[in-house]
């Protein structure tokens, strides 16, 4: 589905990462691999270290820490927030929405909209779409988009398919109406027939968590996980990404009438370095235009990887300069989405720790 938005902008991005850092080597003994094989895999996939929250820390802690940082530093006025969108698959409760919980904890005004969106790897793009649509309302001038996930709480520590690549984190993105006319091109597709390519089988109402669902079981590849843990069909997801993402990007650029060379950066979701490098090669994009360094430095925190890629790789540069950026997310759902927009002279573009 093709989408077009007019006269909207991102005015600031903040990433909040746990201060606790775990190195790949520290967890190698959990995996059913030889050390030599693990180290080769580390090189190929770009595993190095990841950020994991301390026990008891939840997404609202990260989000509230980030929002308070912005308010304290004069970068955000609480009463100016007309909508709070939270994209997460790590909610505080099944009910109420975690965005309402955060609104209450922060003491935001009542005259606003809060909404949670259940999305993962494409969560930054889906959140932006929702923000752009809300901004069509006369009464809504500023949307705070929160992306937050704690994948460390869902993945088995003995799952070598997933544990080395995951991370925890949150981001705050301010989305506003733009006084300068602009057009933002986007597209999105979904395939619910492959809903189980990335799934936590138990814990919802369909299969409530029990002692049985918590039992650790070894799979054919030697991974240990329970039905309460995230399970990923790695090969299927890899093939889905290689099959669907390149044509999605090509179509987006053709519709926008933009040559690949004119795009300054391709900030894509970051499952692992290998997958991103293959995407860059397929799209004939120089690898330096598609940073793939988030998994190796912080881990993949689902929809947080794209804003983290922007804050980590562009930082203060994006507070002074202007770049045409192609964003893309792909994964759970299955969902794949992309956005082409100019991002420029942000009020802030940085990373803080919790």
């Amino acid at each position: 589905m093709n989408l077009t938005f007019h006269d909207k902008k991102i005015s600031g991005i903040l990433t909040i990462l746990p201060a606790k850092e775990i190195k790949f080597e520290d967890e190698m003994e959990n995996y059913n691999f030889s050390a030599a094989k693990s180290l080769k895999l580390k090189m190929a996939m770009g595993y190095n270290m990841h950020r994991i929250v301390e026990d008891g820390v939840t997404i609202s802690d990260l989000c509230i820490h980030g929002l308070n940082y912005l308010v304290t530093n004069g970068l955000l006025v609480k009463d100016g927030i007309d909508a709070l969108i939270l994209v997460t698959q790590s909610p505080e409760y099944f009910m109420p929405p975690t965005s309402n919980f955060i609104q209450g904890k922060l003491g935001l005004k009542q005259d606003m909209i809060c909404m949670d969106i259940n999305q993962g790897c494409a969560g930054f793009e889906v959140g932006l779409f929702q923000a752009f649509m809300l901004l069509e309302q006369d009464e809504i001038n500023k949307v705070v988009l929160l992306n937050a996930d704690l994948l460390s709480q869902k993945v088995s520590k003995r799952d070598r398919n997933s544990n080395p690549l995951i991370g925890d984190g949150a981001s705050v993105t301010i989305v506003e109406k733009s006084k300068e006319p602009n057009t933002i091109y986007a597209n999105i597709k979904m395939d619910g027939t492959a809903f189980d390519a990335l799934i936590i089988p138990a814990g919802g109402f369909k299969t409530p968590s029990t002692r049985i669902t918590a039992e650790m079981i070894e799979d054919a590849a030697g991974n240990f996980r329970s039905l309460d843990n995230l399970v990923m069909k790695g090969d299927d997801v890899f093939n889905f990404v290689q099959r669907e993402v390149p044509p999605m990007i090509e179509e987006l650029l053709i519709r926008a009438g933009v040559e690949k060379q004119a795009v300054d950066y391709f900030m894509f979701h970051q499952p692992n370095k290998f997958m991103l490098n293959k995407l860059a090669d397929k799209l004939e994009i120089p690898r330096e235009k598609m940073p793939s360094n988030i998994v190796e430095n912080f881990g993949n925190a689902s929809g947080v990887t794209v804003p983290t890629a922007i804050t980590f790789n562009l930082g203060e540069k994006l507070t002074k300069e202007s770049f045409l950026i192609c964003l893309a997310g792909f994964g759970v759902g299955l969902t794949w989405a992309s956005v082409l927009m100019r991002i420029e002279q942000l009020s802030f573009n940085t990373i803080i720790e919790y």
Partner: protein
Amino acid sequence: MREKVIKILKEIIPDFEVNENINFIEQGMLDSFDVVNLVTALDNEFNISIDGMDILPENFTNIDSILYLLSKNGVQP
């Protein structure tokens, strides 16, 4: 080219033995992570980038399938 591929396979699978009758995937000699390491090594050795769409188990079942994959991705025999 065959010798280079065998050398790489021996580096990735320490107990690798050349046997034309063995299916590397079905016999469990190569798992998906081995394939990632193999593709990375082949890319580096032959200065190519194997197409992501070609990274399928059936393209890594034996030495001939790997050689065919290399030729498909531009490596001259």
